[in-house]
């Protein structure tokens, strides 16, 4: 299992906005894998406080290389969408005035610097017109729409004020465990 349902903000907010969405998704897989996913879900909840941070101020715990405005950037291995880094945001920060979706999906990408796999959360930024630059369509380990927690065909603007899609960021959640 290397794909998880990630929630941000607080569970309370999540419940309020999405109803029982994240829990219904649980039925997708067996109880055992649900518990596995739950682990990451908690990680996600803990690390995505969604406070506005300045562009120069985001934490960069991972050593990496590459151009975040290029679809070849290692974090984008399963990203389907347009790159927020080309739209006034960065690789992990929405453009001004856009709202990051607290609910998202997770891929696993290999960092070329340390040759390790990392869990990447692909958050859609929402509530603005499509930013029609730097379209990127990667599909490593990506899965069909009936398995949404692994699908980049889903429009992940859930729990946001509007479903309108603006662009996508790629946030490192942590190292993927070996069995992923």
């Amino acid at each position, binding site marked *: *299992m290397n794909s998880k349902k990630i929630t941000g903000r607080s569970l309370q907010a999540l419940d309020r906005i*999405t*109803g*029982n*969405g*994240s829990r*219904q*998704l*649980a*039925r*997708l*897989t*067996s109880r055992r894998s649900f518990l596995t996913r739950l682990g990451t879900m908690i990680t996600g909840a803990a690390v995505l406080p969604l406070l506005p941070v300045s562009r120069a101020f985001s934490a960069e715990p991972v050593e990496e290389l590459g151009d975040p405005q290029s679809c070849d950037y290692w974090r984008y291995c399963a990203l*389907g969408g347009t790159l927020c880094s080309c739209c006034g945001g960065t690789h992990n920060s929405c453009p001004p005035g856009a709202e990051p979706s607290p*609910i998202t999906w997770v891929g696993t990408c290999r960092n070329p610097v340390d040759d390790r796999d990392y869990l990447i959360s692909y958050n859609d930024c929402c*509530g*603005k*017109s499509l930013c029609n630059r730097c379209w990127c*369509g990667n*599909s*490593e*380990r*990506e*899965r*069909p*729409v*009936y*398995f*949404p927690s*692994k699908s980049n*065909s*889903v*429009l992940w603007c*859930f729990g946001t*004020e*509007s*479903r*309108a899609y603006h662009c996508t960021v790629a946030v490192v959640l942590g190292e993927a465990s070996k069995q992923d």
Partner: protein
Amino acid sequence: MRFLMMSLLCLSLMSGVVEAQLEAEQIGVSDFPVPVDSWFVIKSLEGSYIFDGDSGEMQGMISHNWVTPAIASGPARKEAYLVESWYSRGVRGTREDVLTIIDMNDLSVKAEIDIPDKASALSFRNHIGLLGDQRHVTVFNMTPAQSVSVVDVIDREFAGEISTPGCAIIMPTGETAFMMICGDGTLQYIGIGEDGKETVRERSKSFFSVDSDPVFDKPMKTGEGWLLISHSGRAFEVSVDKGRMKISEPWSLLSDEDKEENWRPGGPQPFTVHRNSNLLYVLMHQGGVDTHHDNGTEVWIYSLANRKRVGKFEFEEEVSHILSSQEDHPKLYVFNKEHKLLIYDGRLFRLLRTIEEPGPGPGLLQTLAHHD
């Protein structure tokens, strides 16, 4: 003041002149012809462009917005059904989801039915489906909770919502039922009553693994039921007999040699079936695992009766979308990566026509028949 005088003058002059000096043309509104099997639809973000594949001429447009997954045709009543999701300020404001009924006599809007503001905004043909009874339209919702809204298009009312956790993709079957594909590798069968409420629900055995070899989320209607194809090219025929789902043993589209050469199915719209002749067309490319979105370089043709490949054709340009007409002698509608729409003879693979300006695209290709 001066204006007022002029306008009075204007009116008095007008009333005095009744004949024009030259017989001039009339401006009109074109009739919408009765759709035939050679027609196809290019669904783009702001509207569906309807073309006749015989002439290559556009016949008209159904307007909608970017949320609309697909057009569901109800030829029996000369209607079409589509889901629209509106915000009062385009990308913000109040949301309002509706099922819009298009009058296929003149492409006007005939009615609008309020539905829960939950419609998924995904361009999948099978996120909307008119059931066999021609009365109930099913709409896939995602909030991200997954469910299906049932709409009665005869009484024109929302009939109810069916929770379908873990499943997506609507495959109408029989009169009042549909199947869905679920993330645990199963199918789900849901039957409804005349009131649109769920009456029966079944779950198949797990027949594929989403991790190792998922089936595409693009099923095809066959004569018998539905056809599903996996990322590695295994084909499953599914049907329903007396309320029981039947899932065939898989057969492979690829020989060992094909696999060695890394051939795989893929693309935004990689499959189509010509039902009369039981032919399956598959876009193929050479690539590694997880290249299921990659465009095809060739189309391979299979006989579903014999489960054998009966032909292949190499395109000059990469191809993203294919759709077969359901005429006796099929045409294949093809979007290449240059956004040109090519029309081929579906048996001889002669290029019949190129539509240079198919509108903004490439979008979903579909027909105005019930399931395509």
